[in-house]
């Protein structure tokens, strides 16, 4: 059994390029300018803020697909510069979710595995903030066990026919495309064979999008049913049967970003203001504990961004960031309620920006943090594999 050592759990702190700090100032100025706009309201969760208008304005600044080649509408900036933009947006609670999935994982996936025609057709539209993506992984009978997906793509003359259903699909009702993981062949011994990814137009005939209202009463995710959906040959992404390898590379982007610990940062920020300039000893310790952990998580997440930039596959490191980050997000909420006397819920005569209202929404969103992007249990199993235990 290989020995766990510090060497397979390293998070060397990268140095941000000077350009990144200039960019940070630019993003802050943009956000300050936007603060009065209709589309802009700080969110209780980064996934709650869907604003095509805000996304288009970001695109106009060149901040969507910013690491991609210029010929696909990108700006050829580094991953660390992109990180700087995303962390500033998240810390401000900006409504980023419309373009988020496309920018974070669908675009990079197409860039890496897609055909030239797919890249040319799709990437410039993502980068201009006109084309939004959904993730097509989970199914009614496949949650954590992604290899068990049953949505089937069969070869037909000139293309593929898709039958099955995806679930927990955020914003399928307003997005343009889904990248769906489908079964195209036998799973084989390791269960990872016979899977392929397809680019599916969510407006296509035979695609039914059924709302699933979440426990906050909001319609954010959906069930997406494919009934004899016939798509052309060129909608296969990458190689037939390469779906598992492709999807796992996509997940490293999904798991290590700043949204895994900053998604409810505005609660932390509001808590600091609620407590005021003269905290008691208990409040000071609680604020400090969140501060020291956030500072550490940010350094770890930045380190993973640098590993991705260097072409490494930091799956285990990303899982560690997500596990620690999700615990931090939960502790933000739990700390807030523990150190001040507050009843979460709308106050009579209050508004949605009041601390009790913000906290109420944050309490209700907590359960999703340790589920989305892979559950805590899956993260710990990935870490255990990294330690040589599995």
């Amino acid at each position: 059994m290989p020995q766990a050592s510090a060497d397979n759990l390293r998070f060397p702190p990268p140095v941000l390029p000077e350009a990144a700090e200039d960019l940070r100032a630019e993003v802050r100025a943009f956000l300050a300018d936007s603060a009065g706009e209709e589309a802009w309201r700080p969110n209780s969760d980064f996934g709650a803020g869907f604003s095509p208008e805000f996304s288009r304005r970001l695109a106009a600044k060149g901040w969507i697909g910013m690491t991609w080649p210029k010929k696909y509408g990108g700006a050829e900036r580094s991953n660390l510069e992109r990180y700087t933009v995303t962390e500033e947006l998240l810390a401000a609670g900006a409504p980023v979710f419309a373009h988020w999935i496309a920018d974070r994982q669908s675009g990079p996936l197409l860039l890496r595995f897609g055909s030239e025609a797919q890249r040319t057709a799709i990437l410039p539209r993502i980068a201009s903030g006109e084309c939004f993506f959904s993730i097509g992984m989970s199914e009614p009978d496949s949650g954590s066990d992604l290899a068990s997906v049953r949505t089937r793509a069969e070869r037909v003359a000139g293309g593929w026919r898709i039958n099955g259903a995806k679930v927990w699909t955020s914003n399928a009702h307003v997005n343009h495309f889904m990248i769906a993981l489908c079964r195209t062949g036998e799973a084989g011994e390791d269960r990872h064979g016979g899977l392929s990814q397809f680019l599916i137009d969510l407006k296509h005939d035979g695609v039914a999008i059924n709302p699933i209202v979440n426990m906050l009463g909001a319609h954010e995710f959906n069930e997406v049913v494919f009934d004899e959906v016939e798509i052309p040959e060129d909608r296969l992404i990458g190689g037939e049967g390469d779906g598992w390898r492709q999807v796992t590379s996509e997940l490293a982007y999904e798991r290590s970003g700043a949204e895994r610990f900053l998604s409810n940062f505005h609660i932390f920020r509001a808590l600091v203001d609620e407590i005021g300039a003269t905290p008691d000893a208990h409040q000071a310790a609680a604020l400090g504990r969140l501060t020291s952990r956030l500072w550490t998580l940010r350094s770890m997440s930045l380190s993973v961004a640098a590993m991705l930039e260097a072409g490494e596959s930091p799956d285990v490191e990303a899982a560690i960031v997500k596990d620690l980050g999700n615990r931090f997000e939960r502790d933000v909420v739990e700390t807030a309620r523990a150190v001040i006397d507050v009843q979460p819920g709308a106050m009579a005569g209050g508004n949605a920006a009041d601390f009790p209202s913000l906290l109420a929404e944050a309490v209700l969103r907590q359960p999703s943090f340790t589920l989305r992007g892979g559950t805590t249990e899956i993260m710990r199993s990935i870490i255990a594999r990294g330690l040589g235990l599995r």
Partner: protein
Amino acid sequence: MNEELEILSHSAARLFADLVTPELLRRVDAGEWPHELWDAVAAAGFEGAEMTAFAATVTRIAGRFAAPIPLPETILAAAMLEGAGLSVPAGAMTIVAEPIAIDAAGSLSGTARRVPWARHVAHIAVICDGTEGATLALAETARCQITAGQNLAAEPRDDVCFDGATAVHSAGGVSSALLHEQAALLRAAQIAGALEKILSMTVQYAGERRQFGRPIAKFQAVQHHLAVLAGHTAAACAALEAALASPGFLANAAAKACASEAAGEAAAIAHQVHGAIGFTAEHALHRHTKALWAWREEYGNETYWNRRLGAEMAALGGAGLWPKIVGPD
């Protein structure tokens, strides 16, 4: 980590692996000074490691082996003396960061509590409060009254009464707060090393120990314990490395707070996975877990540093929080 630090890490690991033997630890437990270990460390020049990256690197490796010597204390004493323009004596030293009184003639008075390794060293670098403000004095332990005490890991933590002692020499321009912060950072480095050690011991043990017909590492409950242990270890190490890369109060405070919090969580998991054998005197695990439980308190535990950090954040207000987290400290 750059190449020089990598080389330092490897040579320190070799030295400690060779010399920190069970036999040496038994002699230290009986009250002996491990002169052969100290002499080797001095010959390698580790006790003169430059602050902060080199010092923290060699201290982290010492922590990995629970090396029973005042290595961070000597490094800090030398760095402070040098910084103050004072000559640095040979041999192991220790530090006193809580100010002691000094008069115009250089006479010291007062008692410092829980001074690391005082009984075994010849010199102490002492922060003093005098009429001229904070000064750094070099004191000889031979002139002090030393009362033996120890920490949880049985490392000497002695009370030192300076009454009647005179500074060998002294100079101004020093800061008690800075020494305290740096001492905390080097304890965080020792903790990081000890965490790395208990992680690898625990993973190895889980792979060897068989129950219900298979290694306990094959049980998901145990795997998840180890994943959490790895997370704590990774966080403490990452905080340390980040603090070395971008030094400042926030970084130092966060590094010690994260390390101290991780220490308790990690030690509990390491013992849980080791079962009863890890609770025996014979097994090596307690060397490292006792060190973790001791070091997490020294030079400020997580509550101390978090309180100070939290007070600073509260003073900044919500709008200042994020710029402080990402900004230059």
